[in-house]
């Protein structure tokens, strides 16, 4: 079996996963979801919102695709590649999307932004020049209670232009 079968040991599973480019051995609790496991191990940029798959603030990239950390059992990441918001950029060297969100004023309370930026990254990875409709569709699972989404759409478009210019 690929990655085999793993068994619980005193209530924990040992999984191997690449997080933000670094291979890690993580102990995850039986019944623990990816969101909680990531936060417990220090990746607190992944936010806990509704915990029912509705708000998207827990979104992370699993093998390049945004998924809901609150609905994915942590063990499903075994053998996979995870990207959290911490893996995208830093305060001193932000990712073009992070820079664009700040510049467009797309961040108010900021709670939804990690999920929104990761969803946007996936969109731009496969659609470098998205339309407004494509952006809104890609972000339809990331709820923001502060804004009307106009600034976020603008930010994604600006980031797309910037990334295109870089290529």
């Amino acid at each position, binding site marked *: 079996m*690929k990655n085999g079968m793993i*068994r619980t040991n005193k209530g924990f599973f040992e999984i191997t996963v690449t997080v933000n480019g670094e291979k890690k051995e993580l102990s995850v609790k039986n019944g623990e979801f990816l969101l909680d496991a990531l936060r417990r191990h220090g990746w607190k940029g992944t936010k806990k919102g509704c915990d029912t798959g509705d708000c998207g603030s827990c979104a992370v990239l699993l093998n390049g695709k945004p998924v809901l950390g609150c609905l994915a059992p942590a063990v499903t990441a075994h053998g996979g590649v995870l990207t959290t918001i911490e893996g995208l950029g830093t305060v001193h060297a932000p990712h073009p999307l992070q820079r664009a969100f700040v510049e467009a004023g797309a961040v108010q309370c900021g709670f939804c932004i990690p999920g929104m930026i990761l*969803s946007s990254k996936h969109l731009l990875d496969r659609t470098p020049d998205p339309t407004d409709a494509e952006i809104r569709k890609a972000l339809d699972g*990331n709820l923001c209670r502060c804004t009307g989404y106009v600034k976020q759409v603008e930010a994604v478009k600006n980031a797309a232009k910037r990334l295109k210019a870089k290529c």
Partner: protein
Amino acid sequence: MKNIKYYAFPSSVKEALAVLLNKKYKAMALAGGTLVAKTLPDTVETYLDLKNLPIKSIRLHGGNLVIGAGATFDDIDRSKLCRGWAGGVISAAAARCSSQLIRNMATIGGNIARPHSFNIFPVVLLGLDAKVRLQAKKGARLVDFQDLYTSGLGLRPGLDSLITEIVVPARTKKWKCDFIKLAKTASSWESYITLFFSAEKKGRSATQARVVVGALSPRPFRAPEAEKAMLSGAGGQAAARALAAELEAARAGEYRSSAASSLFKRFIEGQI
């Protein structure tokens, strides 16, 4: 999920079945996990993760459209083959279900194996006369979609068998189809009423008709009397009355039956 002792990551259908059928493991298959990851029964001790199985492709085979059970809603939404089939109704069904984050995870196999009444694909696939390939202990079986949920099948997908692919017959490729999903929002997962229609027009009457109702009963069902009314060219009013009678027989509830028949009448008047 606290009773889980093992997580299995099979890389072939054969390996997955071996775990599923071994009583020692008390396994349950999970595809995207969006419907059941938080509601696993306490009796389940092994989580059988299907993500590595080679059952994700969408292809043509013998003129039929074959959708791997592991294809996500997003895969189906973006598939050119699905978009070009039956007026794009399969892709539209995927696109109008929940959010992009859910569509990245949820699979068509999971949607039909765990049939909540509001699930969209059971309705659409029943309307398209689809078949489902089930892999069980005794080998593979191609089952008519309408038989999938009947006790006569003798199999419980996800517990003693696996859905590996969905076969949509070639004859439906040019069908004109549509569906109406009445829900809280356009992309809500849970619909109050789902109606699938297909009709081919010749003169004033239809030459082919399908009416499938979802969300009004535990399983989707075809409405043969409403289809007959469409075929006879009796008009929207008569077909809607026929559907209302069928919904009443199915105890769908007064308000939703009335709303469903009105939506149906509007569809017919727009099509025929």
